[in-house]
Structure formats: structure tokens, C-alpha cells
């Protein structure tokens, strides 16, 4: 019999039951909750007259709606305030731990999970948010669910899920200077398209992935969903253990040692069979940026936007619609376009390493006058660390201001919206039409590339300034 993949090992251990001809009943170890996708689920269990089955395995935080300035004041937007208050109310009523606004553990749900040691290898984790895939970086099976499924987890700590197929993506070799985890994942999605991963769960492997820090791995797994995959995961190793050790909710002392024993078994067997295997060469990866309206429309920053002829004939209409929205011409160079906004933040790139990278890059430089730059830490702890390391001052000297934690301009549910027609270089994960505000135009890139755009005021290969 062929060996098992890492994904199989974790999944199979969590199957409570199989429905004949149907999905599996999958047990969920950790459930993360935020204000947007939970109110209808809380209302659902209330109308059934039941309570949360395992409230102790659920953690909540408001992130999508929150303002990123003046967080000590009440939220101005009435509907946002109502939704955030509703979360507080629901958590209180149902005994769910909440890290609310201004709590030292507050932040974007996918930033605080790992930071607090809630995310651990071998677990199943869900959240009513597609970027739950982030947590796969620790070797857990983590994926986003809809609100009906949030209600299922609240009611029974289980969901009904068909088992996805398995894909292996390995990236081998060394990344060159100026090439980051974000470029790796944008590169992969540009190769397999925004739907190439649909139906799959991806395991990322290879020396280039192994050499990434935990935060880099999170960036990669975070965006696995943008290929259509349910999620991505990476086998735990020394880097993983080192990151977890000592965190608030991580096992400690003898328990940690015991956990490590079982975590060490979490890897795909040598003879495991994947439904699809793809291999990429790290040497071919360069700073990447998107030019269209889905994350698969990315290219090397020094390249040109593909001509219409280079696009598959069936996809041309969508391609042209996308470029028309962006106001870009097929075949034109990507670099050199004037940038109005720069956004560094989100659950993809709002961690301390991202802020360090930006700070180091802009140190001694100045932001271009016409650029509005938002630098938004992913959590309170990231913010605190940035203050401690003097990152805040470096940014200020270069003309930037560090805001307060939240999803911010990643999806513009709060006040941070890119105005209509404006072009933003963003470190977030989605460049859909209007994602950063109605009529806004988004190019996705790494924190380095975003910093370069902020300094020059145009789309710039960061390597030219290193």
C-alpha cells in the first residue's frame, strides 16, 4: 500500500464518521471567529435553542470592520459598530474567549492564531474566512468555511466535508536577493491560475519553502486559497517548533516535549501518492506583481503585460474586461506606472518581519509626495514589537505613519478605502474589482515592492534600490 500524505494523516485522524456516498464528518480542533461571518451562526444556534458544544475551542476577535486610527474611541460607522458590538454580546452570552479592540491580543484573526500559539501542527482549524489557510504553515489542516458551517462547528464541533484531492508543489533552490515569500506564492498562482488549485489541498515542499521563516510560510499558505485550493500546508520542522515554543497557548514543559514527539511524525511518507505534483525552480522566481483583477494575473515586475494574442482564445474576453478595468494596455511594461496608494498590511503581509523589511528598505529614504501610504500592523503584538524595535520612528522619518491593527484596506469594510480610479500597490491577497473600495485598482506585491513604490511613486523593481 502506498504511503500517506501529511494531509491524509491529519484528515483521517479527525474523521468521526463517513456518510455513505457523502461527505465525511470531520472533527474540528480550533475554531476562530470574527464579526462578519458569525452573527447569523450565533443566531442560528439560538433559534435551535442550543448552546455552543465546545466553547473552549473557539476564539474570537473583531478585525474586518475596525478602524485603524483612534481605536480607543467608539467606532464611527454605525453598521460596523453594531456588528462589532454584536460579536462582543454573542461571545459573552455563549462563553467564547474574545480579544476585543484594544486588548493586547487583538488583531487579524489569522495573525493572532499563530502568534498566541493557538495554531499548532496536526490540528484541524476552521474560520468563516477563506484565509484560514494561513495556519497550514504549521502543518495543520486549516481552511475557510461559510456561515452555515460556522453554525455546524458551534453546534457540534464538526462539519461535513468531502475530502479534497491532494497536490504537491515543491520549490527547490535558492531565492535570490529581493525575492520574498510573497513573490514565491504570486509566482505559483501565476503559473497554475486562480482556479488551478480548485478541488485540491496543497502541500508545499522543497528547499526554498524549507528555508522560509514561519512568517514567510504563512504568507505562502495564506495565498494558497487564491489558486482556488481549499488550503495549503507545510510539514512542521525545527523552524516550526522554535516558533511555537513559549507562546501563550502552546504546550509547555513536558507537554511540549510530548507534543514534539507526535509533531515529528507529521510529514508525507516517501512513497505517498499525490493526485498532482508540480515542481518549480526557485532561480526562476523574481519580484512579482499583479496587473489584472484576479491573483492569477501576475507577472515578473520587469516584464510586460501579456498581449491579447498570448491569452487562450476562450479567456480573451475576460482578459480584456480585466485590463479595461485596470486601465492598462496589453503588451505595455508593468513598471513605471504612477502609484497613488501603497498598502502594507493584511493577514498576508502584516507581520513583524514584513514591517522590518519595509523599515529597513525605507530607512534613509523618503516617501514620494503624491503617494498615500498605509502601514497597518496585523495585531496589537506586532504593533508593540514595532514600537519596541524603533520601526515606528524609522517609518515616520521616511514620511510614513504606522496605523492600528485590523484588516484595513485589504477589503475596505472599514474607513480605509482606496478612492475610485486610484492605483494601489498592496501587500494583501486580492485584487478583485473594487476590493479596496469601489472603483479602486489594486496591484498585489511583496512588502519590498510596495515600499519601493512608496519611495519612487511608481511601480518599481525593488532590486534597483537595494
Amino acid at each position, binding site marked *: 500500500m502506498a504511503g500517506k500524505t501529511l494531509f491524509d494523516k491529519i484528515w483521517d485522524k479527525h474523521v468521526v464518521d463517513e456518510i455513505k*456516498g457523502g461527505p465525511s464528518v470531520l472533527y474540528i480542533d480550533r475554531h476562530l471567529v470574527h464579526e462578519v461571518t458569525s452573527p447569523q451562526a450565533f443566531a*442560528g444556534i439560538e433559534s435551535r435553542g442550543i448552546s455552543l458544544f465546545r466553547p473552549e475551542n473557539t476564539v474570537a476577535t473583531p478585525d474586518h470592520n475596525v478602524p485603524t486610527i483612534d481605536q480607543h474611541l467608539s467606532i464611527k460607522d454605525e453598521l460596523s459598530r453594531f456588528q462589532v458590538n454584536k460579536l462582543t454580546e454573542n461571545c459573552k452570552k455563549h462563553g467564547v474567549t474574545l480579544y476585543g479592540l484594544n486588548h493586547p491580543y487583538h488583531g487579524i484573526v489569522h495573525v493572532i492564531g499563530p502568534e498566541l500559539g493557538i495554531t499548532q501542527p496536526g490540528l484541524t482549524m476552521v474560520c468563516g474566512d477563506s484565509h484560514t489557510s494561513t495556519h497550514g504553515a504549521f502543518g495543520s489542516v486549516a481552511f475557510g468555511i461559510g456561515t452555515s458551517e460556522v453554525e455546524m462547528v458551534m*453546534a457540534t*464541533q464538526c462539519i461535513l466535508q468531502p475530502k479534497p484531492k491532494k497536490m504537491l508543489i515543491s520549490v527547490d533552490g535558492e531565492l535570490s536577493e529581493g525575492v520574498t515569500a510573497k513573490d514565491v506564492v504570486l509566482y505559483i498562482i501565476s503559473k497554475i491560475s486562480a*482556479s488551478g488549485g480548485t478541488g485540491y489541498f496543497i502541500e508545499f515542499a522543497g528547499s526554498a519553502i524549507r528555508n522560509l521563516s514561519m512568517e514567510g510560510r504563512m504568507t505562502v499558505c495564506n495565498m494558497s486559497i487564491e489558486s482556488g485550493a481549499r488550503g495549503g500546508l507545510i510539514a512542521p520542522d525545527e523552524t516550526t517548533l522554535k516558533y511555537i515554543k513559549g507562546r501563550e497557548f502552546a504546550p509547555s514543559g513536558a507537554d511540549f516535549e510530548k507534543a514534539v514527539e507526535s509533531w515529528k511524525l507529521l510529514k508525507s511518507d516517501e512513497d505517498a501518492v499525490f493526485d498532482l505534483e508540480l515542481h518549480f525552480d526557485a532561480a526562476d522566481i523574481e519580484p512579482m506583481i499583479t496587473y489584472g483583477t484576479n491573483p492569477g494575473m501576475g507577472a515578473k515586475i520587469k516584464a510586460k503585460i501579456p498581449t491579447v494574442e498570448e491569452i487562450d482564445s476562450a479567456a480573451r474576453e475576460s482578459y480584456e474586461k480585466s485590463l479595461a478595468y485596470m486601465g492598462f494596455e496589453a503588451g505595455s511594461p508593468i513598471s513605471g506606472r504612477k502609484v497613488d496608494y501603497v498598502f502594507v498590511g493584511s493577514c498576508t503581509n502584516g507581520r513583524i518581519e514584513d514591517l522590518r523589511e519595509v523599515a529597513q528598505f525605507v530607512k534613509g529614504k523618503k516617501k514620494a509626495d503624491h503617494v498615500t501610504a498605509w502601514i497597518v500592523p496585523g495585531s496589537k503584538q506586532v504593533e508593540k514589537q514595532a514600537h519596541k524595535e524603533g520601526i515606528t520612528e524609522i517609518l515616520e522619518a521616511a514620511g510614513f505613519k504606522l496605523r492600528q491593527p485590523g484588516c484595513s484596506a485589504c477589503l475596505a469594510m472599514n474607513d480605509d478605502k482606496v478612492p475610485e480610479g486610484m492605483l494601489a500597490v498592496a501587500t494583501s491577497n486580492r485584487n478583485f474589482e473594487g476590493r479596496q473600495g*469601489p472603483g479602486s485598482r489594486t496591484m498585489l506585491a511583496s512588502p519590498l515592492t510596495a515600499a519601493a513604490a512608496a519611495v519612487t511613486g511608481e511601480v518599481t523593481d525593488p532590486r534597483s534600490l537595494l
Partner: protein
Amino acid sequence: MSSEKFQTIESLAVPLPIENVDTDQIIPARFLKATTREGFGENLFRDWRFDKSGAPKKDFVLNNNTYKGSILVGGKNFGSGSSREHAAWAIHDYGFKVVVSSFFADIFKNNALNNGLLPVQVSESFLLTLIRAIESNPSTLIKVDLEEQLITITDSGASESFDINPYKKECLLNGYDDIDYLLSIKEKIVEFEKSRS
């Protein structure tokens, strides 16, 4: 949420032959602030349907009186992006019962099935046939028979069978609810928890 039983549908259809329709287009984030499931249909495809002042955009298909019906025929990779179930709620609330595409994003598909909205996945060539039939004659009737797993263009008789998970099919046909099912096996879940510790 348990829903009505899904019956065979014969209806006109609305064509939206655009690839990669993501859930941010189906229902933009700024309309996700409600805390109930109702009323999202109003803002379905908001930024494609209305201009900044709130006036309907004439060239968008939902503002075009030519096309009506409870079947939405989309392009490839429908429902990609954000996991927001509000997208399925919005489409259903607007009055659609079926969405047809050659390819659905996974989470969207689950969300639709959990809300009595049937995602019908057809081949690319059949999708093209459908779109052509509807666009050349907007009074084309399309029949979707869930029991038989068959989608048919009434006039021409052209048809294709579609797949659906047998469990989900039962749920839709009978209006069953996953949560009721999970609650009914709670003892098993508790047993499972014990076996792990």
C-alpha cells in the same frame, strides 16, 4: 438552515458569461455588515448593477428586461475568492434557484448547497450551447431536474447530466439540514472525543 424542498425547475435564464466571477463582485464587502441572512439580494452584483449615484447601469444583464428567470448561467470559475456565504444568500434572495457554470469554486459550491441554491456544473461546450441559446432567444426555457440530475434546453432537447454528491442531493430534495444531522449523531462525536484523549 433547513430550506424548502428543491423541485424540478423550468425557467427562463439570465446569462452572465464572465469568467472568475468572485464573491466580492457578487456582494461587495461593504454590504456585509448585516447580522441577519435576509435582504442581500438588493445588493447582488452591486457595483456591476448600479453606478455611484445608485442609478442602474443599463448594460448590465440584471437591468436588462430581456432576461428573466430563476436560473443564472455564469462563466467558468464562478464564486471564487472570499468564503462569504452572503454571496449565496444574495443570489438566492434575488430569486435564483440554480446557478450554472462549467466550474465552481469549492467554498461557494458548499455554501450554495447549504442554502437551497443548486450549483449545476456542466461541460464548457454545453455551457457555450446554453449561453448561445439564451442570447439568441431570451425566451428559451431551461429545465433542471435534480432527481434525474439532468439539465435540458426545452426547445432543442439538448441536455447534459450533472454530478452532485448523493448526500447533498437527498438534503436538497427533502429540505434536510446538515446541522440536524450532526446533532443527531452527537453521541458518536462525544465517543470520538473520548477515544482521542
